[in-house]
């Protein structure tokens, strides 16, 4: 069996599961945010269950339109707060203590290796970086699981992605996953598990693994997953709030497809409008002038991402025609960025340093684009209208390319700046 199959089997009390099999599996954690939880709450109440299945395994995180951007958003956030109080939820994260959900839960040790996690947010697949099976579902799925502690799944086929060779300077997890999506397309892994492995992955730090698994959904994947190892152990030790299990794929595990990538040949990669699969080397895009830069999100808002951007922009100025918005993904990252002097580097350079929020990533608030404007962002989607006006454009990149572009006022590589 593959690691994905083993985790699913362990959660439905079976010795073995096979692709295509329909199972009802126990979930270790359920999450929803201020956009998806209101529907989940309404549907949950229709079921008529007295309580949630486990008050310490349902996490509500107001992060998308929070801090509350308008009255309607405030009403939605209030639904989360009221429900959490009424049902005595142990994992409600108020503004000021919250963070972007997929950065927050791993950081707080609330998800771990071997877990089965569902979330009413498509980027729930992030936790595959820890060796968990994690996948996005809808609000009604969450409502049902809140009552029963279970969710139905079709066991996915697995695709193997092998990465070897040394990464070029400034090339990281974001470039690897954008390159992969560019290779297989936005439905290249539809309904499938994406298992990332190889020598390059074995030495890839946890933040970059989380970035890679985060974007499995942009290839249509059900989940992304990386076999836990010593890097995983180091990350979860002293952090995990529950027990965890390391699973790994058997030698004779079956894969529907295997792809190999020589990382020494993967360039700094940018996804051009309007699909994540529309990738080009950053070096070929120097003609694209930009109006806004966003560094943040569940994809690239971790402290290491901020350090990378700060290293580029330190002592320089954001281009006069550019707005640069830096959003640490959690309160802890915000604090660390202040202690390390990163916040000062950004503000001195003329950038905005914001409180945690998903904000501009989904065109919510805190940096919306006008008609005709272009942004380069470390976020995960560049669909039509994703960051604002339907006639605006979003380019996706890693934090170093985004920061270099902020200095140049056009898409640039770090070497052009440092």
């Amino acid at each position, binding site marked *: 069996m593959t690691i994905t199959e083993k985790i699913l089997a362990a959660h439905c009390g079976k010795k073995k599961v096979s692709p295509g099999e*329909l199972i009802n599996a126990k979930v270790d954690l359920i999450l929803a945010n201020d*956009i*998806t939880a*209101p*529907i989940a709450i*309404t*549907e949950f109440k*229709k*079921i*008529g*269950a007295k309580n949630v299945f486990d008050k310490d395994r349902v996490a509500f995180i107001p992060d*998308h*339109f929070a801090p509350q*951007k*308008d009255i*309607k*958003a405030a009403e*939605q956030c209030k639904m989360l707060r009221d429900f959490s109080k009424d049902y005595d939820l142990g994992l409600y994260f108020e503004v000021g203590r919250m963070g972007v959900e997929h950065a927050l839960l791993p950081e707080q040790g609330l998800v771990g290796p071997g877990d089965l996690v569902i*979330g*009413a*947010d*498509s980027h*729930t697949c992030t936790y595959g970086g820890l060796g968990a099976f994690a996948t*996005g*579902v*809808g*609000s*009604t*799925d969450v*409502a*049902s699981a809140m*009552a*029963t502690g279970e969710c*139905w799944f079709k066991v996915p086929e697995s695709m193997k992605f092998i990465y070897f060779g040394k990464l070029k300077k400034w090339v990281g997890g974001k470039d690897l996953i954008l390159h992969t999506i560019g290779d297989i397309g*936005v*439905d290249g892994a*539809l*309904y499938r598990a994406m298992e990332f492995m190889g020598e390059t992955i074995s030495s890839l730090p946890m933040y970059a693994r989380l970035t890679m698994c985060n974007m499995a*959904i942009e290839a*249509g994947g*059900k989940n992304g997953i990386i076999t836990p190892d010593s890097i995983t152990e180091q990350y979860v030790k002293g952090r995990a709030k529950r027990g965890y299990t390391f699973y790994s794929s058997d030698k004779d595990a079956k894969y529907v497809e295997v792809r190999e990538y020589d990382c020494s040949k993967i360039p700094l990669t940018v996804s051009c409008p309007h*699909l994540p699969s529309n990738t080009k080397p950053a070096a070929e895009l120097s003609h694209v002038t930009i109006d806004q830069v966003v560094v943040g999100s569940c994809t690239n808002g971790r402290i290491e991402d901020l350090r990378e951007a700060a290293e580029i922009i330190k002592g320089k100025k954001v281009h006069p025609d550019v707005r640069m918005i830096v959003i640490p993904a959690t309160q802890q990252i915000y604090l660390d960025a202040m202690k390390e002097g990163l916040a000062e580097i950004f503000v001195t350079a003329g950038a905005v340093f914001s409180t945690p929020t998903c904000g501009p990533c*989904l*065109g*919510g608030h805190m940096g919306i684009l006008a008609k005709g404007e272009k942004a380069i962002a470390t976020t995960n*989607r560049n*669909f*039509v*209208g*994703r960051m*604002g006006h*339907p006639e605006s454009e979003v380019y996706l990149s890693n934090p170093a390319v985004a920061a270099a572009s902020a200095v140049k006022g056009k898409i640039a590589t770090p070497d052009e700046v440092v």
Partner: protein
Amino acid sequence: MILKGNAWKFGDNIDTDAIIPARYLNTSDPQELAKHVMEDADRDFPSKMKAGDLIVAEANFGCGSSREHAPIAIKASGLQAVVAKSFARIFYRNAFNIGLPIFESEEAPDKISEGDVIEIDADKGVIRNITKGEEYAAKPIPPFMQELISAGGLIEWTKRRLKAS
């Protein structure tokens, strides 16, 4: 179940931001969402579509976010069903969970033109093009999905399970 209506054509990879842009997600009121259905794929769509119409799209319909607001907006607008070559997996789950009829067909999107009158026999898995006098096969709906449909959606199905246990 027989569904009959006029077809509106869309292309590949119609994402959930195109179906219902995030700028409208500060509410989950179905009628509010319906006012903006497919707006970023076609600005005039909400005003020109009529209740009872159908969407016919290419591959990977509903890719992107997990927002259930997408199938809700389609359903609340009065659109009867979506036919596509394939669906993104979260959208697929969500549609069955909330009771929006969706049909996978390789052939139908290639043959159907905008405005064609389409009749879908959901039980037989047949898509009839009344305008062109053609018939296309829809992929059979998996047994578990049929169970969800006959229960009236995931919430009713869950209620029954809890009662039985």
